């Protein structure tokens, strides 16, 4: 399981990377915005994306839409981890095809729960 972590703050990327490592996901890569993430996704295989929403150059929602619009990437699970907490935004992310939505600040337990739920659903549909 190779996971791409996308956030413009290097500290948050590190925190997410550590939490994922604790959960047994040690194969990760990082990108600082949606644009850099897409470049990586197009050059290397990934199984999962954890992305922030508010980033310069290309936001997380734009990244999500780009992933869903790409024939090769469209089934890639995307977990949004963001400070954006308005109903309209959560709905927008859901309509764009997000697989999970975590509001910052979050706990290790929340991350574990959401990942578990996503994998459970993916397993059921596979």
């Amino acid at each position, binding site marked *: 399981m190779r996971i791409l972590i996308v956030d413009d703050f290097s*500290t948050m990327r590190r925190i997410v990377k550590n939490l994922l490592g604790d959960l047994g996901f040690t194969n990760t890569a990082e990108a600082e915005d949606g644009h850099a993430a897409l470049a990586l996704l197009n050059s290397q295989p990934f199984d999962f994306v954890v992305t922030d*929403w508010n980033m310069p150059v290309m936001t997380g929602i734009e990244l999500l839409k780009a992933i869903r619009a790409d024939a090769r990437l469209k089934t890639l699970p995307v977990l949004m981890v963001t*400070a954006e*907490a308005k109903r309209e935004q*959560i*709905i927008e992310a*859901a309509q764009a095809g997000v697989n999970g939505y975590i509001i910052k600040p*979050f706990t290790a337990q929340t991350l574990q729960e959401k990942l578990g739920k996503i994998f459970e659903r993916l397993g059921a549909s596979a």
Partner: protein
Amino acid sequence: MNASAGSANERALLAQRLQDALTALESGDEAGWRREIDALAASRTQPMMAGLGRLARELGQALGELPTLPSEAGELTDACARLDHVVEMTEKATHRTLDLAEECRGLTAHLHAGELPADEQAQVLERIRHNLTEIALTQSYQDLTGQIIRRVVGIVRRVHEGFGALGLPPPENESRDGLAGPAVTGLDRHAVSQNDADDLLSDLGL
């Protein structure tokens, strides 16, 4: 002098000026009526000029008071530079804390393996204790960044009040990109909790 007596006084003064200007105009005293009209105009613009002057002075002072400020009086751009510095400081402190925490995790794994002789175990425990102290010390960034943020808040508040005093409303605050950012309790009424988000998503079939 109370406010109503003050404004009554001002009204009387204004009436007198207008009267004098009219009398001067009717009697063909051009210099006289011009003088009265100029005095009237000055009485209207003086509070605004004084307000602007005070605002500029306060802004200069506020920025001048800040630590490590270049001696020349700065402007709001300087407040921005300070906030950038806060971002940098918090980032550095967080990385330092994460470095130490990661090292501690590695050390506990070492201890967990249970193959260390007693004296090395003591060394590892001492290293963990030392790292925890360092982590605590690293939190001192909060004091420094807190001070800088408070200063900048003071500047923003004074500028805001200054505009208010001049009767110039600050521009409507429109979100630049439509994103709300982190919700602040008591200020952001439209933010939902993780539980609300979960409910909403499950309603949407997620």
